[in-house]
């Protein structure tokens, strides 16, 4: 299945939870914010929300800026 991850096409074998996706990507859930199909997800919902085919995911964190 295809999703759009941070603006790029991304392949997944099957629907996964946000938590699993982060694990797969080796991203610490406590350091990021996630937008699922333009809706922002509270951190506690990461385990329940499932990423399906065609979904759009934004994963952001803090970087240096002024």
């Amino acid at each position, binding site marked *: 299945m295809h999703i759009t*991850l*941070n*603006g*790029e096409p*991304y392949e997944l074998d099957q629907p996964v939870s946000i938590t699993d996706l982060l694990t797969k*990507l*080796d*991203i*610490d859930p406590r*350091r*990021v*914010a*996630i*937008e699922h199909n333009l809706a*922002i*997800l*509270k*951190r506690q919902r990461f385990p329940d929300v499932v990423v399906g085919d065609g979904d759009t995911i*934004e*994963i*952001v*964190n*803090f*970087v*240096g*800026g*002024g």
Partner: protein
Amino acid sequence: MNDTPFVIAGRTFRSRLIVGTGKYSSNAVMAQAHEASGADMVTVAVRRVNISDRSRESLLDYIDTSRIFILPNTAGCYSADEAIRTAHLGREAGLSNWVKLEVIGDERTLFPDNEALIAATRTLVKDGFVVLPYTNDDPIACRKLEDAGAAAVMPLGAPIGSGLGIQNVNNIRIIRELSHVPVIVDAGVGTASDAALAMELGADGVLMNTAIAGADHPVAMASAMKHAIIAGRLAFIAGRIPKKMYATASSPLEGVVGR
């Protein structure tokens, strides 16, 4: 003599200097500069995690969040919608509902789009944010931002990263006189005397990044800025002498030997 505390939206800060986290040669240098600056609020950008190639180390590993308050910003946003969306993501990623709101109007000047900025401020205030908008030195725009619920107004002294110093001292002074919220000069400072001048004009604080991160010796410059902010603030409350065209002797005129 005692100064009034520096309070924004009910939160008191020890330092009137707010610094950035961008453009440092390394996170280690940044951490030392932050330490030297004495700042207890730093601003950070919100960006997509780099999926393909990610450095392990996170910016936050180099900021002692027990002492330093994190102010997410919306740098790089060119519309109210982008800025609002980024602000929400920043709130989710962060530890607070504060945002340094930027809605850029032009790539070369990075000047704010005040119309969009005011609209975004209105929305984010409704959404429960503490909004600190980066604007230009326009007293009318600052008043509208205040009316829209901004917790402070942050007029620029000069273009971001230009180091030109305060280009229009009269406007900053006017904005301070007409505002009822803290006035923070954001952007344009190049060296210590610029920061001191901003405070002497009555600014409640100064926010800077490039002046420190881009200096030959960022840690030394951070220390310079710490002292400059204190100096300018003290001079403002101490009440400077008036300017005169001619001289006034510092020593007694009478009693000179042989007269």
